[in-house]
């Protein structure tokens, strides 16, 4: 069994948490701002769902609001399917290091988007954190489907501060 390589898996919602689980057909994408399913989005002041940044840390001035459910080509402004992110929403994603242990539960970190795959991954750091690891693969899937020592999936959630910033101003 081969190892799971870094940045192989895009983040996805694994446990939706309380509240509305899906929102869609309410938010339009902005022309010129193309994104793919799995990208993290904010709600721009003009009412558009818009991409945020490739590095998501607490320096980000705008709140994280959604994860895209579908690709958006940015050609015409159409409604896009998005899923709301709450402080309860738990995501499944990879960490940038090759292994995680139970000692990583409770650690904080930032998100970085790999330029090649477009996939976000968690970077464990105490500097400007926006997410918190709530569970690790050795806990919820201990049978080791991949080679030993290659547990690098985690469940994480956003820190409330990352979701509660003032809305972004329009960039158009």
């Amino acid at each position, binding site marked *: *069994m081969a190892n799971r390589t870094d940045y*192989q*898996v*895009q*983040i*996805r*919602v*694994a*446990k*939706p948490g309380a509240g509305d*689980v*899906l929102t*869609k057909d309410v938010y339009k994408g902005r022309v010129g701002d193309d994104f793919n*399913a*799995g990208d993290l989005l904010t709600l721009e002041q003009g009412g558009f769902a818009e991409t945020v940044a490739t590095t998501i840390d607490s320096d980000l001035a705008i709140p994280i609001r959604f*994860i*895209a*459910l*579908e*690709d958006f080509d940015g050609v015409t402004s159409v409604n896009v*399917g998005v*899923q709301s992110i709450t402080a309860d929403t738990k995501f499944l994603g990879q960490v940038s290091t090759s292994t995680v242990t139970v000692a990583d539960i409770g650690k904080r970190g930032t998100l970085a988007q790999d330029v090649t*795959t477009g*996939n976000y991954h968690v970077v464990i750091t105490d500097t400007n954190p926006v997410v918190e690891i709530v569970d690790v693969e050795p806990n919820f899937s*201990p*049978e*080791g*489907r991949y*080679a*030993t*020592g290659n547990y690098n999936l985690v469940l994480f959630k956003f820190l409330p501060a990352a979701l509660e910033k003032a809305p972004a101003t329009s960039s158009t």
Partner: protein
Amino acid sequence: MNWTFTAAGKAAPQNSSSHLTTEEAFRAALDRGFDKVIERMGDQPWEGEQFVRFQKVDRDSGKVTSFRGLTGTVPLSRDGDEMQFVSKGLGFGYNWNTYTRRVAAGIERKAMEIDDIGYTKGMQKGLLEMHKRSVEYVIADYFNRATGQSGSQLLAADGMFPIDNARPNPNPDAPTWSNLEATAAISEDSLFAASLNASQQIDEDGNLFPQTIKKVVIRPGERGTMWTLLNSKGVLGSNYNNANWAAGFFDMKNVIVYDYLTTDSIFYWLCDPKDEDNELMIFKRKEPEIKTGWGLLASNPDVLGMRLRADWGLNLGDVRRSIRGGLVTPTT
């Protein structure tokens, strides 16, 4: 028209970013096919269950204890002498546990309504396959780490790794014993050593307790080596005409190629794995059960929820009467 292509691996299409099977996910599946969309889920062999016994239980944990028979030999004693008494001793016990596993799938109603390609179908079967895969990998993990090279999923009742040396005996009078074979390539010599070691085993009181090897489990990479070894009349790699002992003693039909065995190791079964001598058991408290219903999850009448729940655990007692093994030097 291009007649000469250069291979370039595609980036994997990612899972739906939602926890639900959404209409967007269905449309994305449509984009990737046309009139017909293939669900590429092949049948895979489930192999691990042949090595374990199953036990239905009501409780989720418990302790198994054991006792030993009468030990030693009958002492010399004349009729008029005072009688010498013997009594039974306790053996090693172990604790067993079962664990709850759950997973769910949710499908948006509209995705089902517009689905004409079967994208939203077969989810219950898929959940059950996930359960079977879990069982498979749990058993595989047991064997892949049986010698404790990176810890082990389970310890035997004596507190040692499933395959280990210097194993204690419950009778303090008895020496330690081993079911660990020396690391070596599979050869006539290594098979003979295993056979000899099995016949030299001792019981819990230190008495000779000869065992015979009934089945051999190897990883797929050793299939060719083993086949050649067991089907060659003469000793491999020898100029002499000496007969090949392994070919006469073992039979390929008693060799199990275990595809999920990824560690370079070999196991020798001393009993039929389904015999009660095998104390590697799955305790099943709850068989996998699927509940399906609109609004079952997410409290939304337009989300078809399905959830699988099962409660079971792999547990190990004693290994003396069942298994020996060790690491092998891979030949392929």
